């Protein structure tokens, strides 16, 4: 059953590659996305046992990431029907196929317990996203693609050497050499601390680069800024979570080796640095897609801080995976619409979006309110959990820095977003073909409703999964 999660998108990739019509392909993409979502839900309801050999196991952490990825993917796919209708000038064959390959790889990351395989799948997602970033085929997008590819590749390569260190540590410790998570967890106590430490550092830097923790985030603004809105959504809401899942696995290992304190502190430090960086870069941002990229840096920072804090904050981190990816979907999809309508992503040109695009503009504004942690949206729940946990643990400095950077980020983002959406559109702005339609507005709107719903009510089954995930990451003294 788990295999379906991988095979179905691969099949989809093949199908979309074979479909000749540009118009039909996004529909097929959506169909496969729906199928994937259905399979996921089916798997969440009755989860299969661990596969023989322990290579595949859908545990609670995987479920959270899988669910948020597939939901976001589904809405992005539906959005692509409307979006690609505006980009008829070029074939979307590679676009659709790459997306589905990426989905297959992403599913693999979430269900595997073999760290090596996880790494392979993660690198596959990196590579499969490359053509998507280059979708616009201009000088800027090639530059972004180049930076994305090289920096992420180097980062992920460092993660690979981290994994090698880990594997070597098992050899040195004379236990069964393995990169299976469960084996490592059970043997963790015996591993040599020197190698393990080195491994953790390399893994943190490697996956941190992929995730975009500052100062390893440098590819993010370029890649998010130059790729189409829905690709940005997938990058910020999907790929980031996969890297975070990888970090969660490392975290599990750290707990088992009792070397958690260093890793936690490093996470808190890098998380806070990311938030502060994001705060600095978001103020007076002239390009709203780059602003969203920095917002993504901020939110991976939040997740890192939460994970580093431990305790109840871990629950917040897990919920934030979901909240962040869905909210990023809202923001990137609606910003994509605004971009299409104004044919510019400069905040100087985009004015009065609510007047010009009542739906997209309002959704974008609501998304901004949501992402900055205002109730009644889901990110509020996670962010508040994290802050309160920090205070309860008595880590006042961390909590204050956290709040201060949230405050600066809000100011910076408000000063960028509010002029964009409020007021009257400039009279001299370019007229474009774009109009809000059900296909382009429906997906972000649905995502918005979803984060609203999660902001006021977390369904019991989801709550169970989250609590189970949090218990997996509970530091036992």
């Amino acid at each position: 059953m788990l295999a379906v999660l991988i095979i179905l998108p691969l099949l989809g990739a093949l199908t979309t590659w074979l479909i000749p019509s540009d118009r039909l392909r996004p529909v097929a993409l959506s169909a496969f996305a729906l199928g994937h979502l259905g399979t996921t839900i089916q798997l969440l309801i009755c989860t299969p046992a661990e596969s023989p050999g322990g290579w595949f196991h859908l545990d609670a952490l995987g479920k959270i990431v899988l669910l948020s990825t597939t939901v976001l993917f589904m809405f992005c796919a539906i959005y692509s029907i409307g979006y690609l209708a505006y980009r008829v000038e070029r074939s979307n064959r590679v676009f659709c196929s790459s997306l589905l390959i990426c989905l297959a790889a992403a599913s693999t990351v979430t269900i595997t317990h073999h760290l090596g395989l996880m790494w392979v799948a993660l690198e596959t997602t990196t590579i499969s996203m490359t053509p998507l970033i280059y979708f616009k085929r201009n000088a800027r997008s090639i530059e972004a693609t180049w930076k994305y590819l090289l920096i992420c590749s180097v980062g992920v390569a460092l993660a690979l050497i981290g994994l090698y260190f880990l594997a070597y540590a098992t050899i040195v410790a004379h236990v069964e050499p393995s990169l299976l998570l469960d084996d490592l967890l059970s043997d963790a106590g015996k591993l040599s601390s020197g190698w393990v430490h080195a491994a953790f550092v390399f893994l943190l830097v490697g996956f941190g680069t992929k995730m975009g923790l500052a100062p390893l985030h440098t590819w993010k603004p370029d890649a998010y800024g130059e790729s189409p809105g829905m690709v940005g959504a997938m990058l910020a809401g999907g790929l980031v979570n996969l890297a975070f899942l990888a970090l969660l696995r490392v975290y599990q290992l750290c707990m088992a080796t009792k070397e958690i304190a260093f890793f936690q502190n490093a996470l808190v430090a890098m998380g806070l640095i990311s938030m502060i960086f994001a705060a600095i870069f978001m103020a007076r941002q002239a390009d709203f897609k780059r602003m969203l990229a920095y917002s993504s840096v901020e939110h991976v920072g939040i997740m890192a801080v939460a994970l580093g804090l431990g305790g109840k904050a871990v629950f917040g981190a897990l919920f934030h995976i979901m909240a962040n990816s869905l909210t990023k979907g809202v923001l990137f999809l609606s910003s994509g619409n605004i971009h299409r309508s104004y044919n510019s992503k400069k905040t100087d040109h985009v004015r009065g979006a609510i007047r010009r695009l009542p739906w997209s503009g309002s959704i974008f504004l609501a998304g901004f309110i949501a992402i900055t942690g205002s109730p009644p949206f889901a990110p509020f729940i996670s962010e508040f959990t994290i802050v309160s946990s920090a205070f309860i643990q008595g880590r006042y400095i961390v909590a204050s820095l956290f709040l201060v950077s949230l405050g600066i980020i809000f100011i910076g983002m408000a000063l960028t977003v509010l002029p964009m959406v409020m007021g009257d559109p400039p009279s001299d702005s370019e007229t474009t073909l774009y109009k809000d339609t059900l296909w382009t507005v429906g997906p972000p709107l649905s995502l918005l409703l979803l984060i609203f719903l999660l902001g006021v009510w977390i369904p019991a089954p989801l709550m169970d999964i989250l609590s189970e995930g949090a218990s997996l990451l509970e530091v036992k003294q």
Partner: protein
Amino acid sequence: MITIADQLLVLVLLINFVVLGTSRLIFSIRAVAVQGVILGVLPALIHPFSWHLVGIISMILVTKGVVIPMMLSRAMRSAEIKREAEPYLGYVPTLLLGAVFTALSFGFAGKLPMLAEHQNYIFVPASMATLMAGFLILTTRRKAISQVIGYLVLENGIFIFGLLLADAMPIMVEAGALLDLLVGTFVMGIVINYISREFASLDTSRLTSLKEE
């Protein structure tokens, strides 16, 4: 056999310095190709024979020895460049840094506990030193091609370490990892060609329009 492997690793280290010290791109490309071929042969020396192994080795030899060098030289020709004109850091300092990093690598490896049978060989330091050499090339060179070369060297460093792990890594995963790295390099080659078409140059200092004002 493993002793021969050790000798070959010394060669790999020397190639690092060659790449660090040369300004002619075509020379670097060939040097890295040679490095790739040497590394491709190494598994045969330390692992027992299997058909998987043959497959992997031939894959490595074909991609690292032939495909990637060809792609890079084509990009080089189409962009009409021959040498790395003005690196961010001169060749002599780069070489010196390379030497320092190599020394550090030996120090780093000495600090970590080794398996007894690996104790006398230079796998770990060679891996680290190659990694660092790759890093140096990535950070000091201006041309996109040089950066790909840097990435290749970095990847070779990782590969050396992977040789120690024959038992831990299932061959499938090992192959998958390798494939990914190769595909990555391959895609980079494609992107390089796009860059040279778009900018008529492979100078990455041109690729700085995406920044904060």
